[in-house]
């Protein structure tokens, strides 16, 4: 397992801390057309993912691994279907803790 470039748990608010770095974010898919997927992040803000999803259909909730662009969108690497029911609040809390007090546990 390659741990050289760990992905940070982010929501929309935390994106600007990780520009140019690898992140992972959970998003609720709102619209998916062309090469862009618009989603709602775990803190209720808009999240733009600039890339085409894999051929398999996306479920309502998707977690994306990718690099953060300068315009705060994500260029995706890996798409993971999270199903149709996920607790966004817990994920959001996780993002906050992983970025704040417990950063040393994650990065």
């Amino acid at each position, binding site marked *: 397992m390659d741990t050289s470039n760990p992905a940070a748990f982010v929501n929309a608010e935390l994106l600007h801390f990780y520009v140019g770095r690898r992140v992972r974010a959970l998003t609720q898919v709102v619209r998916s057309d062309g090469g862009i997927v618009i989603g709602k992040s775990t803190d209720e803000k808009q999240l733009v993912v600039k890339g085409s999803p894999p051929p398999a259909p996306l479920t309502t909730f998707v977690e994306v691994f990718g690099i953060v662009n300068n315009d705060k969108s994500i260029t995706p690497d890996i798409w993971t279907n999270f*199903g149709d029911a*996920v*607790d966004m609040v*817990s994920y959001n809390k*996780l993002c906050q803790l992983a970025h704040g007090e*417990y950063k040393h*546990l994650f990065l």
Partner: protein
Amino acid sequence: MSVNLTANAIPAIIGGDVNAKPLVQVLDVADVALISNSNNSQPQQQQRYQLLLSDAVSSHHAILASQLNDRVRTARVQKGSVVQLLDYICTPLRNHKIIMVLNMETIIPDCEIIGNPKPYKDSDLPTVGTIANNTVENLARSNNNSNSAAQNASHNAQNFRPKIQPPYQPPPAYKGRGAILKNEAPARIIPIAALNPYQGRWAIKARVTAKGDLRRYNNARGDGKVFSFDLLDSDGGEIRVTCFNAVVDRFYNVIEVGKVYMISKGNLKPAQKNFNHLKNEWEIFLESTSTVELCPDEDDSIPKQKFSFRPISDIENVNNNSILDVIGVVTSVNPSVPILRKNGMETQRRILSLKDSSGRSVELTLWGEFCNKEGQKLQEMVDAGFFPILAVKAGKVNDFSGKSIGSISTTQLFINPDFPEAHCLRDWFDRVGKDSASLSISKDITPRGPTNEIRKTVSQIKDEGLGRSDKPDWITVRAAISFIKTDTFCYTACPLMIGDRQCNKKVTRSGNTRWQCDRCNQEFEECDYRYLLQAQILDQTGLTWVTAFQEAGEEIMEYSAKELCFLKYEQQDDEKFGEIIKSRLFNQFVFRLKIKEELYGDEQKVKITVVKADKLDYSSESRYMLDLISIPIFVGSNCCAVSASIDTMNHTY
């Protein structure tokens, strides 16, 4: 240390009062070897000690009875000793009085001379030797109870004329007219700590620290009423005073908290520890002959209250139903809620939280009047942004959910009191405390499903010795199944109904195809199969064996016992059976466990039974763990919770 000698002790003794048992001080001890005579004609030299006794104002000589001689020799009685005279007489001899001490108790072996006592003039004080002589002779006579003519005269320097001494009679002052007999002599004030039922006349001077409510009751003897109040004296001694029926009428309106009274002629009985939490083995019961006098002058030597505050962190380890004092900052006050009590009466309840510098906070439950008076005041103060200091005297510890403190009838609350502890707390809070987090030793008020759910980890079962008390412990644990014993996972059960429940007793084979139940006394073809699962459960702290019966077994295995039994024994499909068992391993559940220590043979073993095995709801479990993380505890356990919650997050898809 200031000691109060019995006021006017010396004049009282000289006046004939020999029942007061006063506290006096020994100013001097003199060794007087005397020549005495007894019934045989040989004069004998006896060692006698003469004491100079003082009541801080007057002093007088006294002779120590020879049986007490060793007290002087062993220095239990010496110059400066404060003693209590228990048995003593005062006999007149010509124109002076002789005090003879027959029994006494040393209270303080060595003490500075109290007061500035002056010799008490009963009349001319003759020289030491002669007094002693005469007294000894009188005593010898009275002890021997002889009526024979004295044989002493010749040995005496003074010409003491022999005369027939009648049997010992109290001095004339005593004869039915004395103050003692009329029960009018002023009683001596003694410390509360010295009170006991064998005490003669006593009086105490103390301040009322608590006054109980007037309670009416009804028992086999009819209706009655009772009230109690607590006293504190200048030596820090405390005692409860109780009045019944007619006595209540006399004193209920007289007694006021904070005032000082002199109380006398009460009965002393053992204290009832259930209600009386003062540190005294006795309790005073006032009767119709008791006296209670208000002392109007402010006696500053008597403190207003006696507290022994405990830090909130100590309360966690205190026994249920203990009574204690606590002081803390009120951080939140909830509104009054009407609560229906067991006896059908409705009362008010308020919950508030107290925080102190020990890093812990505790819930304080106020009942009844406290909600309306102090409770309302505290609510207003907290709403306005002030955080008042509250001192609680005599709160009761309750361990229903965590440890909390509740008010009882004798509880007293003091808002922003003027104590050094209060000032300390205020200081701490203003500087540090108001921003510091504290761990609540009471369960948090936020309800999480059933309110009596106590979450524990597997290692806590052993570490905290759960199940060892007489009642079983019920806890909730989130754990995974790590092993299932497959040799005997079920048993054959009786399917017959007894009332509305199934018998379920283990049945035995009868013949080849039938089953027999011993309880129902019947035979039948088909039996029921019920789980008797022995499994190991595992969490991040450890693992332990548990037993699951039918309902919990089905929740864990997701197959009925009958199906599995069939698979294993009838079809003998070991492969499929093994697959099913394996698939059950490492599934997480929220287990509700009943833990109880039981006797197996001659060994005490802790038995854990799974009462319910709920499938893990990742969402609510994550929220629970996030809540735990939010309370700043030690970073170590937080890391555990954080990594465990990441783990759970990954399960969500």
